[in-house]
Every structure is written in C-alpha cells, then in structure tokens.
C-alpha cells in the first residue's frame, strides 16, 4: 500500500525490494499492448514476400478484398497517398512501410488485410497473389562484399548520424558502413612479433523471441494519432512518425505500457509506421499483432564473420592485433551500422595492446533484417576474441587465466580508441572468476566416454554515446511523489530502480513512489531503452530531477516562512504555503554525458563512452564423446554493475542474460535454404527451458563503483551474455581437444569435430 510522504531514514539504494509491479504481474493484470482492444478496432494481417529478391510485377488483392468481413486490403502504393516517401529506419531511410517496387527478403511485408476478426484477415491474406521478377540474391556477409547482387540500388543515410553522411547516394555496394581504427602500426608489429596467430570465427543468425510478440495499435483523431506500442523507444517512434507524416511531434502520442520482453527486438520503429498509416487510411483503430513465426521475419541478431590475428612476444605479451569483422545486416540496415561502429571499436578485447587495426563492415544481404540483441554486437566479438585468446594461450603453453591477466587492460590505460579506461573492474571480475572456479585446484577431466573440461572468458562493452534522458519528479501537496520517466520497463525492473533513486534523494520509501513510464504526452524525452544505458542515463536524470524537487521544496518552505533546515513533513510545507492541500513541486533534469566522436580516418577518440561494462564467465562442461552432446555442469557469471541499486534485480539480470546466451551458444540457429527460413517456430527453433539450465549456476556482481553513475551504479542488462559462448568452446577443447569456431556448439558440430580429429571425417566435412 502506498503511503504518502512518510519520510524514511532507511537508504533506498541497495535494497533488494520486489519489483513495484509485482502484484500486477503475478495476478495476470499487468498491462501489455498485446491485450489491448479498442471499440471498432480492425486487425491487420500481413501478406509477405515469398522470394528473397525480386521486382514486384503484380499484386492481386481482389480475391482477398472479396472475402466477407474484410474491410480493406492495403499495399505499398496505397501508403504513398498518406506518406509520399514511406521509407524509415534509424540509420538509413531504407525500409518501406510495405514493399515498394522490390522485395528484398523472404517474409518482407507486401500487403495488409484489415478486418474486425483477425481470423478473417488471416484467411483473406492467404488469397493474395503476388508476382515477382526474381533477381540474383546474396546471403553470406563475405560474399556480399563483392557480390554482383546488390540489395539496395542506392544508399539512403538517415542523416541522424554524421559518420554515415558520406554514404549518401552511393551505388553498387552492399556495404552500409565501414568503420576503421588504426592505432600504432599493427602490420609492422606483427612482422616483428615472436609468434603470430590467426583465426576466423563465425556466429549464426538468431532471434530475440520476446514472448509478447511485436504488437502496435494506432488510433486517429481529428488531427492527431495515438500509438500504443510494445516499443523500447517511444520518443524515437514519435520523431520518426512526425518526419514521415510531416507533422509536429505534439500531434503524435506514443505510449508503451509493460513489455513482454524486448531484448532489442522492439527498438526504433517496427510496426508503428504501418499501424499509423492504416489508422489514417481507415479512420478506425488498427492493431497489428505478430505471431511468433512472423517475429523471425522482422528483426534478428547479426550473423558475423570475424578474422582475428595477433602478434605475441615469447613471454606472452600481445603486442599487435588485427581485427576484420563482417556483420550480416540482412535486407534493411535497422541499427546495424551503429553496431558496426559502436561495438566494432572494442573488437580487440579488454587487452592492453599497443598496435591495433580494426576494419568493421555492415553488409546488406537478402535475409531478414538484423539489429540490436542484448549486447549490441558484443557477444559476437567476445566469442571470437576470447576463443582466439584461449587458442594463443594453449599454443604458448600458458595458463589461459594467467595469460589474460598479464595482458588485461587496467584503469588508467588507453583502450584501442585511445580512451582511457575508468571504473572498469576487469581485474576484479577475472579475480572473482578465478576464485569461484577454484582455478588452482587440480581438475578431473574424466576417463570414460564422458570427458570434463573447464573454460573462462571475459568481455567488455562501451555504453553507446552520446544519448540524452530527461526526467521529471513531482511532489504532491500530501508529500507523495511521482517519477515521470520515458524508460520502458520490459522486465529489467527500471520502474523499481528509478523509484529507489528518487526515494534515496527525497528520503521516501521506494514502494510509496509512483512511476509513470513512457507516454510521450506525459513523460519527457528519452533516447531509448537499450544497450544497458537506462540506469546510468535515466538514473542520473531522475536523481538530478529529485534533487531539483528537493531544492524547490526547500525554497517553498522559506516562502512559507519555515526554517529551511527544519524537519517539517512535506505536507505541512504545502499547507502552510497555500493554505490548504494544494500545489506541486516539479523537479526536472536533463542528462547527457560528454563525448568526442572518433576521428574518421583513425577511429580514435579520447572520450568514446561515459562508462564501461564488464562481464566474465567460467564454465565446467561434460562432453559425451559418443554423441557429441555438451552438458554445462556449472556456469559462473561475474559482472561489474558498479554499486547495485537493487542487488536482487541485478542478480536476475545477470543470470537471465547468461541463460539466454546459453541458447544462442548451444542450439539456437535460424536455418535458411536459399533465403527461405526453415524453422520459424518454437517447434523447430528451441529456446532454453528448465531442462537446459546448468546443474549449478553462480551469479556474482563484484564490489565496484561507477563514479559518474547514479549512486555509483551502471547498467547490467547485457553483461551476463558476454563470456558464455567462448567459455563453453574453451571448455569443450579442454575436455576433448577439439576447437569449434562456429556457433552454435550443438551435438552435431561437436561430433563432427571429434570424428575429424580422429581422422574419420563425416560426409560434408
């Protein structure tokens, strides 16, 4: 029960309180757009492309439109009536609301059937016929570098990001962004090194599969639109819709209640432009709710190829590293070019290396688009550099943990960009893994058909910069408090964390605070809920806004003739000042950290990020040499979360991220056959369940402080993913002596590697 304005001396930061919305979630009453129904609402069902690349010759919607109960069928050309240039996207304006002229992947939206009954719409959508003139297609990110098959005739940067402007109008290429970093002289240092090692690693395309599939609802009024959407970025949706429609931002309201998972799938703009246009065309509320299957055709995680080459001295110091990373972005750039740059610059790993060269490429292909997925490209990079690190240590006969420690970046030392590391607890995380793994203890690798092995890995990430958060904290005349925050609570517990931060400042129990979240008519601007940025950016904004409210309350006390330092209940101040229970105190704040963009030619910058995140993993595995089956017996995950605002939520974020990454490591894979996805359902695309849980899980956040974070805190939603994949591959080699360089590490790939290692390769190897 919320109680107004009862001051507390208990610190609110550091309390492991249950999430504020717990009651709503365990009783099934939490609000999701999934459940939203509006009077007169139409449901849209999408007709999708069946070819990977082709010119649209004809779309025949007559049979669908004739079905009883169908309100209307809409194609890309109909949309031009409302939006003359209907292309959207955060980095490139490359994605049409519905396909125009061309289709670029199997599953691309081509037409929509609207009906009051979603089943009628679905049945009618099956009656649409489209004819295409098929074009050559490209699927592989390396082939896309040189393929004559060109996905986009001309590049169309959005103009939002200065480092993409030079790509304007470029033709005949699938490269959506190339990022280069040069520090020292890697080629010369490699030539002079005692040992040189080179490996290539690959990751597979996977999907976020939030259990609440992507869903948006739009309703139009005289000259305004309200979009109810399962979105991680309501502010961006509003700005992008305003641009598409040529409207001012204040005619568009975007609200996001709770999300049934996001993980990066619900970022930027997805279904919102479509429902907005459909609502304007029909003047009725329109809902588009994807099925689980359709999600696989909407947004995915980049498949990658990463070639990494290191020069190492006799005594085990890494002196040079070359990294070439190719990101398979699929048919539309989404935020891929940001991943290429913002994650690309950490490709050499958390090591102190004097000579570094990085080349990172975002590629268009004829596959479903790829964007951000819990780590923004970092898990793909850590997979490669930590597998490589282990291979180097083994080749030199060095203990993998000692080799890492010897080369680890420390606070005060420059990272590859030249930005000096600060408050990155790399050493502490490695020490903690060592202790939790009892690394010095002799390890029994077994003798029978089941062999045991152990492995470790450590990775880091720079928070995306520069981004802005604005917050508002109000006090009512009875002393109760409301926090207005655009951060979307998609399960990470942000409402609770923001309440704890405001409560800490205002000496109010967090449970007594109401958090109003993500409604652009009520909550101020926030860049987006992504990349573990919210606790740091919005947390700082809420802290500053609460401090502003506190200062204004003191001023109010002075106006009321009360001594400023007096311990007067808040309600008494208002009553004294306004003669009754009336009035408000409104605290506001904007937070944007400092940032220096990288030099275009060298990729170097003295200020790449406001904070670093660190995550490390240790695993013990059992490998069945007769079947190739890998069992994770023990999974240790250690993160640097700064000083946790809510230790319980921090622990669940770390372990949840690690288990999600376990799926991407051991079995999840989108299987394609000439651009056709073969396993777009939970029957054929398995995600981790209770049986996939390691026998034992250990989760730890090291004692640390992020000095520029709110009360020493920083984001932790992604760090649990960093080390899982390479730690398992390293443990597999430790157990059975074979090295896997492509994800996933499923029984078939382990068994094939074992067969090859004993000189009996299986067919197709």
């Amino acid at each position, binding site marked *: 029960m919320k109680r107004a304005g009862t001051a507390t001396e208990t610190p609110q930061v550091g309390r492991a309180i249950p999430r504020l919305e717990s009651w709503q979630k*365990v009783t099934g009453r939490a609000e999701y757009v999934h459940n939203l*129904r509006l009077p007169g609402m139409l449901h849209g069902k999408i007709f999708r492309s069946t070819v990977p690349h082709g010119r649209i010759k004809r779309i025949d919607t007559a049979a669908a439109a004739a*079905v*009883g109960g169908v309100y209307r069928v809409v194609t890309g050309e109909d949309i031009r009536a409302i939006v003359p240039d209907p292309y959207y996207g955060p980095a490139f304006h490359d994605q049409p609301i519905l396909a125009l002229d061309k289709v670029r992947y199997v599953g691309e939206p081509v037409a929509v059937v609207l009906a009051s*009954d979603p089943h009628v719409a679905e*049945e009618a959508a099956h009656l649409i016929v489209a004819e295409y003139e098929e074009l050559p297609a490209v699927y592989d990110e390396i082939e896309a570098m040189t393929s004559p098959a060109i996905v986009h005739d001309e590049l169309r940067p959005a103009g939002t990001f200065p480092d993409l402007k030079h790509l304007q109008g470029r033709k005949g290429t699938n490269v959506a962004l190339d990022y280069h970093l040069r520090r020292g002289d890697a080629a010369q240092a490699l030539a002079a090194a005692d040992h040189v090692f080179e490996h290539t690693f690959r990751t597979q395309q996977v999907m976020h599969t939030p259990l609440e599939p992507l869903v948006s609802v739009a309703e139009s009024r005289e000259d305004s639109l309200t979009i109810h959407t399962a979105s991680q970025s309501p502010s961006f949706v509003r700005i992008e819709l305003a641009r598409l429609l040529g409207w001012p931002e204040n005619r568009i309201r975007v609200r996001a209640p709770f999300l049934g998972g996001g993980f990066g799938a619900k970022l930027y703009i997805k279904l919102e432009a479509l429902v907005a246009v459909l609502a304007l065309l029909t003047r009725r509320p329109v809902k588009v709710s994807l099925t689980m299957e359709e999600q696989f055709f909407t947004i995915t995680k980049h498949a990658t190829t990463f070639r990494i080459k290191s020069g190492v001295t006799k005594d085990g110091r890494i002196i040079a590293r070359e990294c070439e990373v190719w990101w398979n972005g699929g048919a539309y750039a989404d935020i891929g070019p940001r991943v290429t740059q913002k994650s690309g610059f950490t490709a050499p790993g958390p090591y102190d290396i004097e000579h570094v060269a990085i080349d990172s490429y975002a590629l268009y292909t004829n596959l479903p688009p790829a964007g951000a997925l819990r780590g923004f490209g970092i898990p793909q990079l850590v997979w490669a550099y930590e597998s490589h690190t282990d291979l180097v240590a083994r080749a030199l006969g060095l203990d993998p943990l000692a080799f890492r420690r010897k080369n680890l970046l420390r606070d005060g030392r420059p990272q590859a960009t030249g930005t000096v590391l600060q408050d990155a607890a790399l050493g502490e995380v490695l020490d903690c893994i060592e202790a939790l793994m009892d690394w010095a203890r002799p390890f029994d690798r077994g003798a029978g058909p089941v062999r045991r092995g152990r492995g470790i890995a450590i990775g880091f990430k720079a928070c995306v910069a520069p981004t802005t958060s604005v917050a508002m904290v109000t006090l009512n005349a009875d002393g109760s408090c409301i926090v207005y925050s655009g951060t979307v609570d998609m399960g990470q517990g942000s409402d609770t964390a923001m309440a704890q931060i405001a409560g800490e400042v205002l000496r109010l129990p967090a449970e007594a605070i109401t958090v109003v979240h993500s409604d652009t008519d009520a909550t101020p601007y926030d860049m987006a809920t992504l990349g573990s940025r919210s606790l740091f950016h919005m947390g700082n904004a809420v802290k500053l806004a609460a401090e502003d409210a506190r200062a204004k309350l003191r001023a109010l006390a002075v106006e009321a003739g009360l001594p400023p330092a007096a311990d007067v209940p808040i309600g008494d101040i208002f009553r004294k000042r306004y003669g009754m229970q009336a009035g408000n105190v409104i605290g506001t704040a904007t937070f944007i950290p400092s940032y220096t963009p990288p030099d275009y030619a060298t990729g170097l910058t003295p200020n790449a990020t406001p904070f670093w995140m660190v995550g490390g993993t240790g695993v013990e595995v059992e490998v069945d040499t007769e079947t190739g089956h890998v069992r994770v017996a023990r999974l240790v995950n250690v993160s640097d979360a700064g000083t946790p605002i809510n230790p319980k939520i921090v622990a669940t974020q770390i372990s949840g991220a690690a*288990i999600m990454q376990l799926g991407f490591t051991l079995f999840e894979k989108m299987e394609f056959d000439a651009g056709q996805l073969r396993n777009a359902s939970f029957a054929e695309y398995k995600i981790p369940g209770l049986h996939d849980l390691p026998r034992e899980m250990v989760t730890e956040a090291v004692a640390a402080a992020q000095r520029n974070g709110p009360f020493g805190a920083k984001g932790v939603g992604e760090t649990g993913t960093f080390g899982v994949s390479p730690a398992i591959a390293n443990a597999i080699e430790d157990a059975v002596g074979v090295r896997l360089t492509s994800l996933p590490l499923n029984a078939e790939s382990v068994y094939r590697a074992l067969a090859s290692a004993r000189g009996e390769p299986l067919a197709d190897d």
Partner: protein
Amino acid sequence: MAQARTTEVRTIRFRLNGEAVAAHVGTHENLVEVLQAHFGLGGARESCGQGLCGCCTVVVNGRAVSGCLYLAAFADGAEVTTVEHAAPGQDLDAVQEAFVESAAFQCGFCTPGFVLMTRQLLDAHPDPDEGEIRHYLSGNLCRCAAYPEIIEAVKLAAKKRKMQPRKREAG
C-alpha cells in the same frame, strides 16, 4: 462475395472463476481469445501459438491446458479457472507470494502460466524436489530466463503451503 469460413457462431455456457457465464463464440475462436474479448481477462496470453510455451495456460475441469489450442466451444459446460481467480479473502495465494518474494519473473508475460502450473504441481506433489520441478514446469518457457528464481519460488511456495494450509477455493 466469398464467405470466410470462420464465421459460425454458437452459444456456450460454463463456469468461469466460480461464476456461471455464457458467451456467443465463433467456432474457430480459441479459449484465450474468448477470455480476452468477452470477459476482459488478459492473464492467459497467446505467444507461440503451438502449445509449446505455456503463456496461454488455463485450467479446464481441474487440468491445465494450452488455451491457444483449446477451442472455446469445447469449454461449454466446463469449469474454467484463470490466474485472475482469487480465493475468497485471499489477495495473493502462497504460489503468487512466493513468486514475488523470490523475484521469479522479469517481464511477467509468462508468469500466469507458471503460477497455474506450479499450483497444479504442488497439488499433485506437495514437496517436489528440484528434478520434479524442472520436469513438471518444462512446458513453460521464460525468455527472460528467471528459471533459477522460479525453482526457488516453487520450493518457497511448497513451504508456505505447509505452514498455512490453503483455504478451499470457491467453486
């Protein structure tokens, strides 16, 4: 004009969370849709659409079913219970309390399914070991992967139930 095959309607009468109700439902409509559209109950949610994730769990005649695969017309005459059902005088039951105290959910979308399956598990096995918990709940998926906390919550709920025997539910 072609007639969609999905328009036949019939009237069903059943007991929903202890109350006698009736609804005109399309023969193609599943139980989750009817609970949402006719009764405003959003706790059962269609996610995978294949009965593989457990988000749509509804209890029909005392057994948990996948509501997304259960045609609403078959609920005629049945006793249907959803997560929204609370026993008289109880705000949260032992299972719900345990889920809150153990932080056994993040986004909360799958939580109603886990709560209903945990109740059924504890009805059948009041003191389950970890293997039984993993096995019994393996048909419920949680993409946030709050699994370690869910296992803790089930154990805690078992303890709570023993300490305060559950009140008989209405119905």
